[in-house]
């Protein structure tokens, strides 16, 4: 790993350099909007806000950045600076050809776990630009909790994409390329790079252990009736789908006649089953959606944030997807070259999972 240690305030220079030296044609970058954080798409390096670090590390989650560039199969190169889960989603989208490997430069930055935009805006002062685990617990005591998706996230540290930005002690960051593309991009900025090897295994394990504990504590469903109850308030607005970075269909099955019966079809259905609930198909919709994203779900929790009825969808999507990913020993977003579980197989496997 080739990288360099910078002061946090030098990050703006780095991003500017990437734009100026044409390592990227534009950058998707978080910036501060009032009390909160949002993404902007920057063409001109001079427009990069300072201090960039406070926005990059800010524990706030609005939209998943991968969702912004989803479907951008353009020849120009976009740089994306985002949290690891967002970069992972982008990598899954590369596998799904919703963006091209060559036209995105993925930069992941350490994440401490995040609050919803709303929570962050309300408590920005208290939360600040970074939370460590002590702070998280302290805030939790005050009823300000990080998102469930973040609490159960095992991969908060930047380790995916082309370039990683790690927070190191003393107000510094470590910037390093982890792919050829990342290395090239960094070199073009004329930073002096040297071999860096930072051992964060222990830290990673701790995060994973904590996340697992949190996961255990989440309430679980054990029957389809409980699922029904869980989804009682669902209005089938499908916001969860729209905000999901890895839901990539041009036209969702549930917008098509078979998935969204109207008129005569609805009457036919009602005749067949005497009565049907309205809106129709919520259960089928959610179960199908879990299946559709079960290998690619990066656990970002965007679905839950998007739900207007405050259904804790993290317990449905990331939690179950993780179980599926475990049987395939697959971690989404690790490597753009790794095949998706459904297009590969081993001659002998999974026989115990079939009956």
């Amino acid at each position, binding site marked *: 790993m080739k990288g360099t240690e910078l002061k946090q305030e030098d990050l703006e220079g780095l991003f500017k350099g990437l734009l100026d030296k044409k390592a990227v044609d534009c950058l998707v970058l978080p910036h501060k909007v009032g009390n909160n954080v949002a993404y902007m798409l920057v063409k001109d390096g001079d427009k990069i806000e300072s201090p960039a670090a406070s926005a990059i590390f800010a524990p706030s989650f609005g939209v998943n950045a991968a969702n912004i560039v989803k479907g951008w199969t353009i020849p120009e190169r976009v740089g994306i600076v985002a949290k690891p889960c967002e970069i992972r989603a982008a990598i899954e989208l590369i596998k799904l050809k919703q963006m091209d490997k060559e036209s995105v430069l993925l930069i992941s930055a350490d994440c401490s776990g995040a609050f919803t935009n709303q929570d962050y805006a309300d408590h920005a002062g208290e939360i600040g630009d970074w939370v460590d685990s002590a702070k998280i617990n302290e805030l939790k005591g005050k009823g300000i909790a990080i998102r469930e998706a973040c609490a159960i996230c095992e991969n908060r540290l930047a380790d995916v994409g082309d370039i990683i930005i790690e927070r190191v002690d003393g107000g510094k960051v470590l910037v390093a390329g982890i792919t050829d593309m990342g290395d090239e991009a960094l070199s073009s900025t004329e930073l002096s790079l040297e071999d860096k090897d930072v051992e964060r295994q222990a830290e990673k394990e701790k995060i994973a252990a904590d996340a697992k504990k949190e996961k255990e504590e989440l309430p679980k469903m054990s*029957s*389809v009736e409980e699922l029904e109850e869980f989804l009682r308030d669902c209005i089938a607005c499908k916001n969860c789908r729209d905000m999901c970075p890895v839901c990539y269909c041009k036209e969702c099955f549930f917008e098509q006649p078979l998935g969204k019966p109207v008129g005569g079809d609805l009457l036919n259905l009602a005749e067949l089953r005497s009565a049907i609930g309205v809106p129709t198909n919520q259960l089928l919709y959610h*179960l199908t959606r879990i*299946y559709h994203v079960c290998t690619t779900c990066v656990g970002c929790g965007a679905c839950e944030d998007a739900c207007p009825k405050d259904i804790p969808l993290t317990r449905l999507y990331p939690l179950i997807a993780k*179980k599926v990913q475990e*049987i395939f020993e697959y971690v989404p977003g690790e490597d753009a070259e790794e095949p998706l579980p459904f297009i590969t197989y081993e001659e002998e*496997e999974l026989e115990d999972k079939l009956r």
Partner: protein
Amino acid sequence: MEEAKEGFEPKIIGFTCNWCTYAGADLAGTSRKKYPPNIRIIRLMCSGRLDPMFVLKVLLNGADGVFIGGCHPGECHYIKGNFYARRRIAALRTILKQFGLDDRVRSEWISASEGDKFARVMKEMAEDIKKLGPNPMRDKIL
């Protein structure tokens, strides 16, 4: 496992591939192997055509069990359709497990010469599902 529910006759939907399991069912027939009448077979060309949505749909429709049959791994008429199917089914059952529905889905590799195995699996499945009782979604308004 609790005892079979009195008088409950489960409805089982079977998806079978044309080349192996459907032929295995035919062989069960030609060799007059009796098995419980709970199954309704839907013929697909390959277990690879089994869209897990079919299973979800039919479970939500109230089917008490879903059977999926394909060629033995390595013997697929379409070379690897059943390898993909196996991954899909494994994923699907992992999801269903969270809602206690996985025991209602069973898949088996049954070749054209395994008429007996087909009949045996049908028997076992009917018994297992009788013990599970009716699908809770059976009389739900969806």
